[in-house]
């Protein structure tokens, strides 16, 4: 057959296979290297530091684990969090992450490598990203072949959508969860293909690891049953499916119940009921199959079929009844808010207030998965083309994940792997087509009637063989686009010969185009990673006029001030976003933190922040609050400050005290949210407003003070504080810390005491009881 370009023909097949496997290994190693390296921007630009908020708690917990051992960690009661309620940490976290780094820590120390626990925590995510790349390779290999696998590995290695949660220092559950997710799916597919109980058990084990590591395990818990159910409905039930699913479900469920935080949920909550139901259904179907294999009577089979349906219905009814009776808990709020998207804002404002629970606009999709995002549908279509069981899995995954990613920015994370896989499938099949040197016999070569194999040739032969020109004309329309599509749609086209690319330039063009895209992708990922995803929101960076980088380090400045200037047990009150950081960096007790388990307690803080000093003071005293910490960006324009979050505090407080706190009072009559002279009295008297703008106007000398976040003019005469003292204000005023005054020694209310201390004359008070002469 004709070749577009010549291949070396003097190679033994053994050499070829060996070289290719060697190349695969090398490229996998390089991909891992790239994946790790591209996540180190944060460390290089800033330093080896834990990022953001939740990681600070994970880091703290890991320290406890590394110092005191596992049992101490398991029984750890953190009495500095949620003061004075305390938090039972062991039973309220997914210990997988801490356990992982604890193991690594101990192994390294057993090898006499004294690595600091912090560095392990910082570098854990990049390390696991390499493993993710590998497991994605394995997964995609099951879908198509090694070349697609390598592409997928490369994609997931540098796709920003995954880097955003796994840069060095973002020490969060997702860091290891994605690897576990992919590997669980891989072994599930493997188990399904081979029908081996071994791989089923492997799936279960990694499922257990996933359960221990991330709350998102519910995704697996519902994906696999969904896949199994779809296969059954497609009439693809097989003993392989039965073995794989049963071994996964039985072992996986039992294992997952060993995690204290999960406990009996797998049999008590709706999130897990799908798995249980499909398990039951599988047993029924398997039984039906068994009977059918032995009985041949038609009616009996139909009866059997009916009975299967009936039993299924009964199961559904029983499930409904149990839920109604309350034996099975209905969907939890977080999970439910994925379906009813208005639910969270109405009933659980805390969840709605988290920024990463907001819906996703298209630019962030494109930002996170540049050209993969439009290769993704193509890949899905290719999966439909040869519809094997594992392809069904990818298809379901694609639909579900793209919906979830649309609803919550955060779930972009679960979408990224399937996008990478599908895109890799599409891309590699493109390259396969255009790199393959084999050229088909063309219809214009079919002038010679000798070869009439191809459809075109046959057509040409059919027409009068005398003049090839005519033949061309006759043959041309026949294998046009239409027939091409038909051929493409047919699962495995027609004879291989008729399929191929002519000429070198076409190949060159397409391949060049493709490589260009890949190059662009790499550039894009590097840019996005370095610019967007590598800043540890603890340390902010701005650029000086001369372009050099200027580090804004107010947070650590303030936290270390707390650590060094306040007594060990000084209770610090702040909005919950900063709870973990205060605990981690300042090492002081906090009222509320990012583990938002107690709505009332958070609402209490919200109430204190959003009500006037007189109302707030008793609350502060009751909770032994010594310092109040607020974040204020008005000076340098840091938009993520407390005044912008203030409405959430009001809303959450209103949820608990609807009579005392009401959101409308914080808006102007026109319904605007303002902080300047037009601000309503409630707003101006609120503790948060006072603490934010206390002595802010003085900073501007005589000039008009301007809040650079709100872009509004701050009143000239700033608020006054009677019950609090300004204790500390960081360099750029981002963090402001206030000390709560003790009661007045003479038993006056602090307002009067303050007035007296400032030398104000109080008007002469009259005797309490109007004594009258009895005449």
């Amino acid at each position, binding site marked *: 057959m004709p070749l577009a370009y010549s291949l070396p023909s003097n190679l033994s097949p053994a050499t070829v296979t060996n070289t290719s496997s060697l190349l695969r290994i090398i490229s996998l190693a390089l991909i891992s290297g790239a994946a790790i390296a591209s996540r180190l921007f944060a460390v290089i630009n800033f330093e080896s530091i834990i990022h953001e908020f939740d990681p600070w708690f994970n880091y703290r917990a890991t320290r406890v684990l590394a110092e005191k051992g596992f049992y101490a960690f398991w029984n750890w009661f953190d*009495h500095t969090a949620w003061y*004075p*309620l305390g938090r039972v940490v062991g039973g309220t976290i997914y210990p997988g992450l801490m356990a992982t780094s604890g193991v690594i820590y101990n192994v390294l120390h057993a090898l006499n490598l004294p690595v600091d626990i912090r560095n392990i925590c910082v570098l854990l995510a990049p390390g696991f990203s390499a493993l993710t790349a590998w497991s994605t390779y394995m997964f995609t290999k099951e879908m198509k072949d090694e070349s697609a696998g390598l592409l997928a590995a490369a994609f997931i290695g540098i796709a920003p959508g995954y880097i955003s949660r796994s840069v060095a220092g973002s020490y969060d559950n997702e860091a290891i969860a994605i690897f576990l997710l992919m590997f669980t799916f891989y072994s599930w597919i493997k188990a399904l293909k081979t029908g081996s109980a071994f791989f089923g058990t492997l799936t279960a084990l990694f499922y257990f690891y996933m359960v221990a590591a991330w709350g998102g395990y519910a995704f697996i818990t519902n994906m696999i049953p969904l896949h199994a159910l779809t296969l059954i409905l497609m009439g693809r039930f097989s003993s392989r499916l039965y073995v794989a699913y049963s071994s996964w479900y039985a072992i996986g469920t039992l294992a997952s119940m060993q995690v204290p935080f999960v406990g009996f949920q797998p049999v008590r909550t709706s999130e897990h009921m799908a798995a249980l139901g499909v398990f039951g259904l599988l047993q029924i179907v398997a039984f039906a199959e068994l009977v059918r294999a032995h009985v041949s009577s038609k009616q009996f089979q139909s009866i059997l079929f009916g009975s299967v349906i009936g039993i299924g219905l009964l199961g559904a009814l029983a499930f409904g009844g149990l839920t109604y009776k309350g034996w099975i808990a209905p969907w939890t709020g977080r999970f439910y808010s994925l379906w009813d998207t208005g639910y969270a804002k109405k009933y659980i404002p805390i969840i709605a207030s988290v920024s990463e629970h907001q819906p996703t606009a298209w630019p962030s999709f494109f930002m996170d998965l540049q050209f993969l995002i439009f290769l993704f549908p193509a890949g899905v279509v290719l999966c439909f083309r040869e519809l094997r069981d594992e392809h069904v899995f990818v298809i379901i995954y694609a639909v579900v994940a793209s919906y979830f990613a649309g609803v919550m920015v955060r779930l972009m994370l679960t979408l990224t792997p399937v996008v990478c896989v599908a895109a890799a499938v599409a891309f590699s099949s493109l390259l396969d087509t255009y790199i393959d040197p084999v050229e088909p016999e063309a219809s214009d070569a079919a002038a010679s009637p000798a070869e009439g194999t191809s459809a075109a040739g046959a057509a040409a032969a059919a027409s009068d063989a005398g003049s090839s020109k005519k033949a061309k004309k006759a043959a041309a329309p026949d294998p046009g686009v239409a027939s091409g599509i038909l051929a493409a749609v047919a699962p495995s086209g027609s004879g291989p010969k008729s399929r191929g690319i002519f000429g070198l330039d076409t190949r060159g063009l397409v391949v060049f185009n493709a490589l260009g895209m890949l190059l662009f992708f790499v550039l894009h990922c590097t840019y996005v990673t370095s610019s967007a995803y590598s800043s540890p929101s603890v340390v902010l960076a701005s650029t000086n006029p001369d372009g050099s980088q200027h580090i804004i380090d107010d947070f650590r400045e303030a936290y270390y001030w707390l650590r060094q200037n306040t007594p060990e047990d000084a209770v610090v009150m702040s909005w919950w976003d900063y709870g973990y950081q205060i605990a981690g960096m300042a090492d002081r007790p906090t009222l509320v933190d990012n583990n938002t388990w107690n709505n009332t307690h958070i609402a209490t803080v919200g109430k204190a922040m959003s009500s006037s000093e007189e109302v707030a003071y008793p609350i502060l005293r*009751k909770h032994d609050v010594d310092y109040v910490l607020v974040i204020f960006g008005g000076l340098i324009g840091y938009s993520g400050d407390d005044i912008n979050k203030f409405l959430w505090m009001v809303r959450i407080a209103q949820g608990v005290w609807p009579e005392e706190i009401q959101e409308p009072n914080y808006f102007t009559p026109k319904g605007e949210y303002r902080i300047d002279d037009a601000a309503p009295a409630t707003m101006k008297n609120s503790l948060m407003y006072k603490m934010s703008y206390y002595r802010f106007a003085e900073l501007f000398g005589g000039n008009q003070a301007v809040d650079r976040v709100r872009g509004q003019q701050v009143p000239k005469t700033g608020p006054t504080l009677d019950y609090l003292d300004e204790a500390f204000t960081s360099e750029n005023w981002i963090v402001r810390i206030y000390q709560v005054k003790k009661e007045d020694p003479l*038993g006056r209310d602090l307002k009067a005491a303050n007035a007296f201390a400032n030398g104000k004359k109080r008007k002469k008070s009259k005797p309490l009881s109007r004594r009258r002469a009895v005449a």
Partner: protein
Amino acid sequence: MRFLRTLLFPLLALTSFALARSSTGDSVLVLLDPSLKKENYSIFFGDLEKKGYKLTFRSPKDTTPEIIKDDVAQFAHVVVFAPETKTFAADVTPQSLVSLLSKNMNLLLALSPKQTPLTSLASEFSLILPPPGTPLISHFPKRDTPATLIPVQPPRAHHVISDNLAPVWFSGVPQSLGHNPMLIPLLNAPPQAFASDADSDSGADALVEAAEKSGEGLWAGSSLSLVTGFQTLSNARATWVGGVEMFSDEYINKEISKGVKSGNRDFARDVTAWTFQESNVLRIDSVEHNLVNETLPGETYTINDQVTFTAFISKYDPEIGWWRAYSDIDDMQLEFTMLDPHIRTSLPPVEGEPGMYAVTFRVPDRHGVFKFNVDYKRKGWTYLTSTSMVPVVPPQHDGYPRFLSAAWPYYAGAFSTSAAFILFVALWLAGDDRELKKNKGAKAE
């Protein structure tokens, strides 16, 4: 350890307060207005010096010696006998006097019918003074003295003023008391007494008129206080005296009736003793808490533990000038608090253990950070407050019962199933499958 401490405290007290009669020190600054001659008050100051106080005299106008130098209090007590002084030196302002209290110095202040800076200060102590120029007046009992010089019977059964004192001579302004629990009246006006501008003392009606006009009602009756004590949260003490003359030699020597000396001298002694923290001074030496029948204090407690709380309290004894264990408090309470008191129980003294108060209770079934609160506030006595924090944790992972009788069905189920499985496997491996093949063959045909 504990015994060592109980020994240690008296020793310290001995060394430091060997001379002093007061628990807080013996240096007294007297701001004496030049208009009141020092020799007119010789007996009063003499008594103080006899007690061992070092008196330093200073006129309100001049600036040395400073009361506070470099933010350090130079004296333990300050007596302000300047009832009519309008202008003080820069360092004697109402604010600075309050700051003295927060530095735990004690004040003895004298008032007069005249309007002075002290009058405005008095209102900060929620004392309410009548309008300027209205001294206390009483026409009973019939006597030859002017109506503004009144014999007043000191209170009986008062734990600051010693019992059955002779009546004391008083002339000055009364004070009506606000709703401040820190106030303790040391001397109340006689029921027939009333406040009015002395000259126009003409009939009750005029008085009522005036009262109605001023809108303050009638300044009269025994609810008016003449000498008022005040104890701040930090246990500093300030005493307000309606008229300074009651400490003068003249009043001290003046006879109430034939042969009966006035009680002024003893009264002054009691008042200064209380004001300078000689009498009614308590303190908590130490508090301890531990599990029942353990001695070491617990770091944390598990829910439902039995916990013993112990407090050691001693009282200052001016006679010997040190602290001695004090077991006479019978109404002290202990609170075990998280946000709200989960447990509030009485903290009784222990028989045979002087100064020791103890109670044993069960920790509530609720984990969190709890506080042992002792908060004992009684009029005239030092406030006793103590707070010690302790986390209460849920049981450890192995703190729960291991084998539950209720779970036997599950144990049985698990074991029987595994046994059955092993049996099945054994049989399966033991059996051969020839006839099975035959069946297969049969099927195939």
